[in-house]
């Protein structure tokens, strides 16, 4: 279980990127963070990944407080970020330290098979298309069997066609070990396709505006009415979060915090 408790992040220049984030993500759950630009989605992921330090609050994974990059937390960035001097197979194996050579080989081969790039194992990243590179990047994160997988708009630079096929690959990999997934996206369709719960965020400072459970059964039919309804619900929430951020009724704990302040 991933727990975010009163998480805040203020940058050195005084920008308040995140303010009092409280969120619990259950084991094996896919949660999608959705919101307009500048609402701190990526900052939140960077905090969980241990790439930035929180200004206040804490992050707990099961009973452990995360204070930096953790072996059980994997991340896929917006760009593939493959190491150009390593072959596709070596890129996938990059995080597999302290694993025997045979096991490493087997795991990489399996991951390559899963993402359908087995015949490209020995090639350089530069020879792959953008979608293929992102698949390798996802495999690199999955191959270490993380408990928590963070995805930072990993499909945003791809065309709709490639994106749909990558969703399939991602769910295929997820089915195997069922890690907890936190997916940052600005694509409502994507959130409804993948997530069990959508967290709508609000900018300035970044905070949680609303949570919407998405209880559609898998595999999800993107043309069905329930799917459409869910998309509309998320869109409405997103609309509210962006339109009048200041006039919105404050959430319960914000009011409590205000009460304490006064």
């Amino acid at each position: 279980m991933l727990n975010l408790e009163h998480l805040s992040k203020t940058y050195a220049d005084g920008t308040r990127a995140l303010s009092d984030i409280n969120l619990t993500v259950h084991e094996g759950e896919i949660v999608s963070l959705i919101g307009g630009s500048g609402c701190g989605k990526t900052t939140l992921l960077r905090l969980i990944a241990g790439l930035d330090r929180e200004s206040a609050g804490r992050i707990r994974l099961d009973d452990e407080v995360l204070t930096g990059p953790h072996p059980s937390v994997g991340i896929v960035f917006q760009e593939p970020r493959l190491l150009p001097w390593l072959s596709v197979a070596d890129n996938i194996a990059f995080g597999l330290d302290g694993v025997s050579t045979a096991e490493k080989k087997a795991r990489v081969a399996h991951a390559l098979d899963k993402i359908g790039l087995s015949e490209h194992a020995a090639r350089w990243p530069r020879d792959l298309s953008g979608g293929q590179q992102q698949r390798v990047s996802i495999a690199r994160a999955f191959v270490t069997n993380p408990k928590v997988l963070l995805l930072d708009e990993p499909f945003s630079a791809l065309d709709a066609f490639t994106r749909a096929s990558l969703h399939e690959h991602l769910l295929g990999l997820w089915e195997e070990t069922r890690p907890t997934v936190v997916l940052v996206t600005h694509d409502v369709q994507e959130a409804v396709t993948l997530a069990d719960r959508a967290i709508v965020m609000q900018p300035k400072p970044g905070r949680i505006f609303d949570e919407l459970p998405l209880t559609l059964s898998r595999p999800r039919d993107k043309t069905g009415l329930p799917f459409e309804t869910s998309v509309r619900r998320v869109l409405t929430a997103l609309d509210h979060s962006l339109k009048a951020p200041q006039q919105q009724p404050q959430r319960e704990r914000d009011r409590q915090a205000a009460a304490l302040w006064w």
Partner: protein
Amino acid sequence: MTGQATSNAWSSHEGAAALAAPAFTEKRRAFDWRILLGFFLPIAIALLWEAAVRTGLAQGRLVPPPSRIFATLWGLAQTGELWTHTWMTLWRVLVGFVIGAVAGIVLGALSGSSQTIRQLLDPTLQALRAIPSIAWVPLFILWLGIFEASKVALIAVGVFFPVYLGIAGAILSVDRKLVEVGHVFRLSRAQLARRILLPAVLPEAVIALRSGLGLGFMFVVAAEFMGASEGLGYLLVDGQQMGKPDQILAAIIAFALLGKTADSLLVAGTKPLVRWQDTVRERL
């Protein structure tokens, strides 16, 4: 549905590759032709000058025709003089280059990877860099004598600065995004240096070494001007004092061949290290 979409995309990839293949070979042919075009101007000038001297239109005493230059070069090679001089020059450049490059790599790496060291080291080195390297010659002669040590020192100084600047700059400009990948996988400082920083700076390091080598050849001439009894630079001075322009030009041609060969060897030797680069080298 989506699976099919992927396989469609794949076959179209292969299809695209097949379509692109003939266009590529055609491009190659055009490329070969343009290389030949580059030879046209120097050969035409050489032939014209040769013809002008042969027909008596020009004297060719101060600007000897190509045939005389090659005859001189051939003569020097026959007596073995050319090889002694070439070997001497090559030895000086090599020793100076190795000393300068090693110092440049070590100090560049230190100053690129630690801000404290950079603030300590860089201002002094930048100040030293501002001194024209030739200005050291009198001091080096006083300190190290007029023989090999002072020459090698001058070459090493010349090689040091471009290598130092290149390596330090390359480390400073390593993509933060790739370094973060290392952080995510919890690499230690040493692992980060070996697995991410080192390969990432290699391409720029090769360029720094190449410009260092180029300067090495520049400074070997300066060093051999300042008093040498052997070396291609000595051939130049000797040609000037004895009034033999054909010997000067022969030495210049030897320098050109030597420099180009050394550079090509360096490029070929480091190519396996930077093979992964996504560049347009094929098209250049």
